């Protein structure tokens, strides 16, 4: 129990902070922060598996998040029949060509010995394949994008339930991680960081600019939701009755019937958004708890011990007969898949997919700050890191504004410095997160909740 005391204290403080936001700002904001905290926590869990368990540095979180988001679009959006009829065949042919290219390359790699001839053959396959794809896909893409460009202009998805896409998001990310792992895992740590960052940029730029796939920067809006819609709630009698019961004391204070109705309407509108967010919070909580149980079990299993052994001394682990390369690849895929799930969760929560918003600052570096701050190698720490840093990231602007007003209270309202500072309050989040990271790295490099090795 004593082992868990600091974890419990840290989590209680975090919950208290969120509740304080609920009391002082609004419950809707508090729940939004809470949901995003949980999404961040899932991302952090993924990054922590790679960095904390195995010491692999993955700066490509952004790419996996974006792929998870893409999965939501491809799974849940209804298909666009016109687009399929004008370009479906060609696009499928291209997919076939790509699969053919992969398998023929694999065949050559297996059956022909390493030589110049093999390199030329592979280069030939790739070039011929790309030219074929360009010829076949070019006109098809133009036709697909011309189908009602204001609303669709893309192939659409499969029209399946949106929760299913969380799993698909994980699979997409795992697939990308497999390729990236094969290419880059042999590199030294800081090269790996740069390589993964740049590969993630490539992925995001493809999602951004291939409009036929997911509308690119034109964004997909109005995605399906696994939770009820606010509008439906506001008109359903059971929900109104519930709100009435909940706030009966407040409603009784009303003087007239019409005033009571006005108050009730306002309360129902507020409550509906809180209710929807609670639904999401429940679903996210389930995901976080499942992942936490699995990752905890894995960490203290023989497999987890082996991973830590590989992390701490690769040569020794390899000498003991552990396949370091294979295990690294496996854990890279596993961690990335979890990040992919988080990406899908985030797009589901937002209800829209905006490829333009995937930027390394927000989706790679902030996540890494979470991992480092929370505690590397400790799942509870990782989740806490997600909560703390996201909370700071969101609440930094109000906090900064408070302090600016405090320190410049004696200055007149029109003072240039004061106005400038107040206008730049949003940027204090970078300062806060950066200084937080530097302080943690300096004085508590193991994080808020450090890794614990249970000795038997």
């Amino acid at each position, binding site marked *: 129990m004593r082992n868990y005391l600091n974890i419990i204290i840290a989590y209680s403080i975090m919950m208290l902070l969120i509740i304080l936001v609920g009391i002082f700002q609004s419950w809707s904001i508090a729940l939004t922060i809470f949901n995003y905290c949980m999404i961040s926590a899932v991302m952090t869990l993924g990054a922590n598996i790679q960095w904390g368990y195995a010491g692999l540095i993955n700066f490509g979180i952004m790419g996996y998040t974006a792929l998870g988001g893409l999965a939501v679009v491809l799974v849940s959006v209804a298909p666009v029949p016109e687009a399929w009829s004008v370009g479906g065949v060609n696009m499928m042919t291209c997919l076939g060509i790509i699969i053919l290219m992969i398998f023929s390359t694999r065949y050559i790699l297996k059956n022909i010995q390493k030589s110049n001839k093999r390199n030329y053959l592979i280069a030939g396959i790739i070039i011929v394949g790309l030219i074929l794809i360009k010829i076949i896909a070019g006109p098809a893409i133009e036709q697909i994008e011309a189908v009602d460009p204001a609303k669709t202009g893309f192939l659409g998805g499969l029209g399946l339930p949106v929760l299913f896409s969380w799993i698909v998001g994980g699979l997409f990310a795992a697939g990308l991680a497999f390729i990236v792992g094969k290419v880059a895992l042999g590199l030294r740590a800081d090269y790996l960081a740069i390589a993964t*960052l740049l590969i993630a940029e490539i992925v995001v*730029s493809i999602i951004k600019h291939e409009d036929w796939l997911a509308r690119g920067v034109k964004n997909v809006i109005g995605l399906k939701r696994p939770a009820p819609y606010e509008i439906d709630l506001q008109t359903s009698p059971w929900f109104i009755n519930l709100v009435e019961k909940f706030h009966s004391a407040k409603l009784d204070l009303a003087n007239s019937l019409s005033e009571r109705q006005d108050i009730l309407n306002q309360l129902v509108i507020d409550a509906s958004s809180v209710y929807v967010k609670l639904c999401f919070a429940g679903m996210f909580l389930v995901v976080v708890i499942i992942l936490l149980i699995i990752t905890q079990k894995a960490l203290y299993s023989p497999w987890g011990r082996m991973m830590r052994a590989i992390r701490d001394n690769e040569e020794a682990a390899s000498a003991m007969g552990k396949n370091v390369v294979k295990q690294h690849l496996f854990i890279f895929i596993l961690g990335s898949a979890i990040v992919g799930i988080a990406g899908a969760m985030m797009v589901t929560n937002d209800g829209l997919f905006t490829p333009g918003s995937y930027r390394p600052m927000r989706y790679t570096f902030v996540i890494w700050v979470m991992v480092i701050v929370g505690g590397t190698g400790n799942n509870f720490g990782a989740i806490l890191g997600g909560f703390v840093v996201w909370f700071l990231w969101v609440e930094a602007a109000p906090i900064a504004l408070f302090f600016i007003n405090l320190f410049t209270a004696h200055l007149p309202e029109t003072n240039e410095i004061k106005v400038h500072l107040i206008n730049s309050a949003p940027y204090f989040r970078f*300062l806060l997160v950066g200084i937080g990271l530097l302080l943690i790295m300096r004085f508590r490099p193991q994080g808020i909740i450090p890794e614990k090795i249970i000795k038997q």
Partner: protein
Amino acid sequence: MDLINAVIVLLNYTIIPALTYGSQLALGAIFVTLIYGILRFANFATGDMMSFGTMFAVLLTYYFQSIGINFGFLPTALLTIPFAIFMMIFYMLIIDQTVFKYYRIKKSPPVMLAMVSVGVMFVTQAIIRIIIGPTDRRFLDGEKFILKATEFKEMTGLAEGLTIKSTQMITIVVTIIVVAIMFWFLNKTKTGTSMRAYSDNEDLALLSGIDPKKVVLITWIIAGILATIGGILYGLDKSYRPFVYFNNMLPIFAAAIVGGIGNPYGAFFGGYVIAFAEIFLTYAYKRFLVYILPESLEPNSLMQLLSTDYKFAISFSILVIVLIFRPSGIFEGKRI
């Protein structure tokens, strides 16, 4: 005549812009490579440090303009370079003393330092945005063009015009001067040699009496000069915007690694490799081909290999290819 026109088209739309962009990348890449070679970590604050130096140039340019100082037909920003460099080096040394020094003395692994540099990146970005804001700023004044397309056409009587912007000329000339001085310094002076020795083998260098503090100090000074000049040249040529500078870190990294990280010659070369690849692969060759092909073969599409949206993606793909086949870079890396 058609052949000359074709060459002019190529010069105007690909070679000159690529040389300019390549020079800007090269300066940044040498900055990355120096830090990597001597201080031994990948500096993720690269883009923001360049942005920091440029910020002072922008502010000073505005100040100079307001008190009526200018540099004739050259941009006023060139006058501000020494002041901006001074501020940049000052900032870098503060960061080094308060942040990096601790980990250097503790001999932390490079990953740790890279992570710390992420923290520095956040802080630098915050400072920049708080001081100057995130908006787009242009601070180019003086003559805009050295050679205008219409003048060129009148002079030569060709159908195609050649435009040379003054910023392009300034970028190329300044880069050549700065890089030449830097290579001279690294190769011919005693301090430069000691820096190379320190980069090659730290223990041996310490044994032969090289003062590590001095090496680190000189490295930051050179890095500050390169970062500021690179940033200012980029800002003059395009425009100054903090977010863009942060993003530029990525092709700069690509250039440094492609050339062989830790090797300044490689980084210099890598900058041009990346720039030329980006521009040549995204240029629409139709206009060029119209001149050199017979009429019957004239292309009806744009003849563009990749859309310009993929500019960044190209440099990253090159990097990935280089990392797979030659992880040490085109030139052998890790040497100075």
